[in-house]
């Protein structure tokens, strides 16, 4: 249990270090980091998907049916989860580039939280769950719990951070005035980065302008809060998936050696 925590810490430091790199270097270092993050997120989510599928198949198929093998999830599932993993890590990396220090602290707090959740859940489930399914199930429970706690922290911190003042501005002029230069070298990434900045600006604008008149701006509040919750939880979810993915990778290795030994 200690080794994944060390690895999680290493990955966290890697991300932090990468976000502090100067522009050009960061652009080049992004690709391997993106690949690594994709692999980790994929590991966790693929494992969870396989577990889900197996439970579902066990409900309907006979134990001896060869369909277990056919339907347990193959290339389509892999491709789908790889795509999800790549997009989530991309979103996370883009957000990490311009993350406030306070949010880095939240992410750092996530490390012991995840480790503690993994350990305590594992202890709790020991007497009730089949040993071969236990680690996967522990991780399955850890992700939503950790995401809930960290998203709540994320929201509190984000809302208490300073924002550019866009009260009373049109959305249009708010975007034109406050959209910042993007630092990426690669044009599509630059575009995405700016898209993300615009998203952030939009939600800030919606929240700030929804504060004024409650009777008029109910819609704006809905837009602002849903954008805030969606982007925040997607970011935290990707991060937690990434960290849990490390655990899954180690566990699979252990499981594989266990299987081979037995």
């Amino acid at each position, binding site marked *: 249990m200690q080794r994944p925590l060390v690895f999680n810490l290493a990955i966290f430091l890697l991300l932090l270090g990468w976000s502090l790199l100067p522009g050009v270097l960061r652009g080049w270092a992004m*690709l391997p980091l*993106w*690949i*690594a993050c*994709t*692999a980790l997120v*994929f*590991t966790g989510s693929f494992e969870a998907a396989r577990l889900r599928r197996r439970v579902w198949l066990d409900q309907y198929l006979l134990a001896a049916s060869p369909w277990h093998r056919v339907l347990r999830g193959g290339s389509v599932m*892999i*491709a789908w989860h*790889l*795509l999800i*993993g*790549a*997009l989530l890590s*991309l979103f996370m990396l883009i957000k990490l580039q311009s993350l406030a220090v306070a949010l880095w602290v939240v992410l750092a707090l996530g490390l012991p939280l995840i480790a503690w959740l993994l350990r305590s859940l594992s202890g709790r489930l020991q007497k009730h769950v089949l040993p071969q399914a236990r680690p996967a199930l522990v991780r399955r429970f850890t992700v939503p719990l950790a995401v809930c706690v960290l998203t709540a922290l994320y929201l509190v911190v984000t809302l208490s951070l300073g924002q550019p003042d866009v009260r009373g501005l049109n959305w*249009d002029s708010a*975007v*034109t005035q406050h*959209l910042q*230069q*993007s630092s990426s070298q690669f*044009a*599509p*990434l630059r*575009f*995405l980065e*700016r898209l993300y900045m*615009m998203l952030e600006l939009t939600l800030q604008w919606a929240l700030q302008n929804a504060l004024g008149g409650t009777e008029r701006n109910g819609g704006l509040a809905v837009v602002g809060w849903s954008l805030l919750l969606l982007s925040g939880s997607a970011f935290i979810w990707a991060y937690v998936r990434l960290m849990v993915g490390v655990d899954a*990778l180690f566990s*699979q*290795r252990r499981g*594989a*050696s266990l*299987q*081979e*030994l037995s």
Partner: protein
Amino acid sequence: MKAGAMKNGSIRRVALLFMAAVAVCAVLLALNVGYRLLSKQLADNRVFAVLVDDQRLLLDGKTLDAFNADLQRLGISHQASLEQQMNAWVDQWLDDTFVLALDAVPGYMDWYYSMPGSYTRLYYAISGDLDAALRERLESHLLVQSGFEQRLADFDRALTRQLHGILGEQGQALRQALVQRYSDRQVELAEPKIDARQVIDVNAALDRAFGASAGDIQRWQISSQASVVAGVGSFALLARHAILPRLMRLGSVQAARQVIAGFAARLAPRMAGAVTIGGSAAAVAAPTGPSALVAGGIAFATAAGTIVITDFALLKAEEAVMREDQERQLHDELVVFRESTRDQLQAQLQAAFGPAGESYRRGVGGIEDETRAKRQFHILDQWRFWDA
């Protein structure tokens, strides 16, 4: 067994990394293709043909915007320099014109105090219309013979010629500057085939703009001639109707006139006396007959001649004192008049350049509107998505 498991595990991890790399590359590729497609769709790949200075520049949308901005900027600065140049020209023209009259003043003075001049004045003083005669002389000397009046009459034509000259030069310079600046920023097209709707005729618009502002200046010329010189119909009449009365009212001119008029007045009773003396002498010497007339005539001529010659010497001495004064005052008055005319003319020109500049901006702004109508607007450009 364990070694096999380790090997299996590491193979799986390599496979995982490989798959992740493939996935990342696929996403990156898709992003790239999507970005390319999007930017191609949204970027201004339409080519505009700009007609300027007998040339056709092929510019894309972004360059066209820059071209337009340059055109506006250069156009406004040219308009400002046009105003400056015209003001300088009017200054110079006024100086040159009044120099003609000023140079004629000593000549007039020479005549005034010459023998023929003096006798002419004496003649008119006695015959009674001294004022009109002096006025006529002054006009003929200072205004007509010097060419001053002719030059004033030519003001309109000279101004128009100058204005068109400067406008032509400036238009040419503006066009050349634009062509020079943008000829190497053109789009390379294998087969330049431009839609007629994508053609922007800067030449025509510039001609319109310059023409409109020239028209404003000319309208001003027509309307201002009355106001510049307060009530005289045309600039040509300025000299006759405004300068001459002022010169005639001058103190020293009047004083000089008074001297000769006074002389004539003093002369009159003595001349009358001479006439009576001649008459009575004739009456005494010969009561009747034609010889009496002859004798009387001789007596009159002698008397009148003596009076005229002695008193005239006195008159010349009196007048000589005044000559310098009169010359100086004439000169000063002309200079004062020149300056007041300059002020009025400059103020009027200033007022005329207001609408002229406005017309010009409208004309050049027409290109902007025309371009804007032909250009597409991109919201993402507005948010600086594609550049920077």
